[in-house]
């Protein structure tokens, strides 16, 4: 293991335990305020956990136990790249990148040579003499990347590195990250499922300060067990109490589906008389049909709803109703005369619904 972390941060109510294999890229996803950035800050030494410890490549970063130990940020060997590139405004691009090597004791010319090398690595050697204020957002983030890599960090911490970039710069930087992250131990906080799919080997989903889901990226998104992971995967999610192969939601709606076999906890929750277990029903918007009147026959789920929004979604129209969505053809929208505010029925076959214990 390159990294082993357990930490509890009381004032943010964050409690996590995670490991990272050498050369692995781990994505942390989760809703705002889930504590993702706190985990990175604790590893970088910018936040002091109340309990726990971290060991990076055999060296203790902190230990909040009885044998107290705290390595300050500048001795940790962790590189950090945030949403905001935070290039030092009073230094040229080259000197920004040379800052790390200089402070590691390299001479001026050798630090600048290292900096030039990394600017070439990230594809912007021609920007060396510019001032940070003269760069575009994408350029600045590349330079910030070069600056973080120039210190040859043992652990790279990326905090939504592409969140502030425009739609054209993000793919370029993502391609760059794909290249430079290969073989580098990295933890990346992201909101973008594409980042997780393209860049990460493994994904952790956090919610309210706890890790709620963990596993290989494809597995987590393919069989989401938390509502957040399901919404990341673009699925409709309904939560409630598990009743056999159905979920009874808080407002009295029953969703029936197939009980997903993967990872059912010990003890069959379907046994009658067992205490209520929370369950999640997930289904794809493309599995939903929209009707003006409730259809007859076949074991189908039918939800009476009002349309809140219509928006284009590829070649289809996404019909939204609160947190649920249905993808239908433009022809169907025209035929049904769908407009926001209209009362409709969302219908989905039970075979299209996956039910999980949450």
């Amino acid at each position: 293991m390159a990294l082993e972390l357990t930490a509890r941060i009381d004032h943010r109510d964050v409690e996590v335990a995670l490991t990272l294999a050498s050369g692995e890229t781990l994505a942390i996803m989760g809703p705002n305020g889930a504590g993702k950035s706190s985990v990175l800050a604790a590893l970088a030494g910018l936040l002091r956990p109340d309990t726990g410890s971290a060991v990076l490549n055999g060296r203790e970063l902190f230990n909040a136990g009885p044998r107290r130990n705290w390595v300050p940020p500048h001795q940790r060997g962790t590189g950090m790249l945030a949403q905001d590139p935070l290039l030092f405004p009073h230094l040229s691009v080259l000197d920004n990148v040379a800052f790390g090597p200089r402070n590691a004791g390299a001479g001026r010319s050798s630090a600048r040579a290292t900096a030039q090398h990394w600017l070439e690595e990230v594809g912007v050697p021609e920007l060396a003499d510019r001032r940070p204020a003269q760069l575009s957002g994408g350029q600045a983030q590349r330079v910030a990347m070069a600056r973080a890599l120039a210190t040859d960090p043992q652990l790279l911490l990326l905090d939504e590195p592409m969140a502030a970039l425009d739609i054209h710069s993000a793919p370029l930087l993502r391609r760059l990250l794909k290249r430079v992250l290969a073989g580098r131990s990295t933890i990346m906080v992201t909101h973008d499922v594409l980042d997780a799919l393209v860049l990460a080997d493994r994904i952790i989903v956090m919610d309210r300060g706890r890790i709620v889901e963990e596993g290989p990226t494809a597995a987590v998104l393919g069989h989401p067990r938390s509502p957040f992971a399901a919404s990341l995967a673009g699925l409709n999610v309904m939560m409630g109490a598990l009743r056999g192969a159905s979920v009874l939601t808080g407002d009295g709606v029953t969703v029936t589906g197939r009980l997903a076999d993967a990872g059912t906890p010990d003890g069959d929750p379907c046994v009658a008389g067992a205490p209520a277990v929370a369950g999640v029903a997930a289904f794809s918007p493309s599995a939903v049909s929209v009707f003006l009147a409730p259809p007859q026959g076949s074991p189908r789920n039918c939800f009476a709803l009002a349309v809140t929004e219509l928006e284009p979604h590829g070649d289809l129209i996404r019909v939204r109703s609160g947190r649920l969505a249905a993808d239908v053809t433009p022809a169907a929208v025209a035929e049904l005369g769908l407009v926001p505010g209209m009362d409709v029925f969302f219908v989905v076959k039970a075979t299209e619904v996956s039910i999980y214990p949450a």
Partner: protein
Amino acid sequence: MPGSVPPKVAVRGSNRWEYTAVPRWVFALAVIGAAFILVPLIGMTVKVNWANFFTLITSDSSRAALWLSLKTAGISTALCIIMGVPLAMVLARSHFYGQRLLRSLILLPLVVPPVVGGLALLYTFGRQGLLGKAMDFFGINIAFSTTAVIMAQTFVALPFLVLSLEGTLRTAGQRYEAVAATLGAKPTAVLTQITLPLVWPGLLSGAVLSFARSLGEFGATLTFAGSLQGVTRTLPLEIYLQQELDPDAAVALSLVLIVVAIVVVALTYRMPRSTLRTQLAGP
């Protein structure tokens, strides 16, 4: 045109009309306010005896006072930087019990009459003072010396630098400092290579304010240091003295003091703008 976005920064010299929500009577009061400051300056300037101006300001006592003022104000500004930068950093960056109280007390010299400040210094460092007795034992006597002038000036000027720099430090935030630390910079390296360059404009304007306050110091100096020509009689003290003996000289020296102040202020405003500010304003 609806939907068009006005430029963020008005181009200097452009006469682009822009709606302002300032009522006219506010302009009228603003004019009175500006006149209140500018008219007395004109009033004094017309009183200047231009025929003898040069003789008046180059007399032995005038030159001694001017030189003493510049020297002591320069040294006290340096002392303000040496003590004020750490003070501002501690106030802006760390959190400790009694911090708010400490800040209020440090800013006291701004509101306490300088004479009171001078008395406080006298009863602390004077021959009979709290620390003065012990210092006297070692043969150190500060009161009524040039050192006392510098101490009086530093006492009244220090809050200006602390206040200005603390505000700039808070605005700049700690994010650049955190990045520098993760790049391996030790705290002292972060201070000298990141923090100070970023807050340079605040430090500079704080230092200029301190210098100006030191240059104009009168009450605390007179109380704690007295008025000995060439030793403790700075320009403001000389002007006050000449007001009784030779009003023409007092007016001439006042003009010199104003010119020095204008030069200092102008130099500050000619300085390049903060790199941080241009960065934040965007390209």
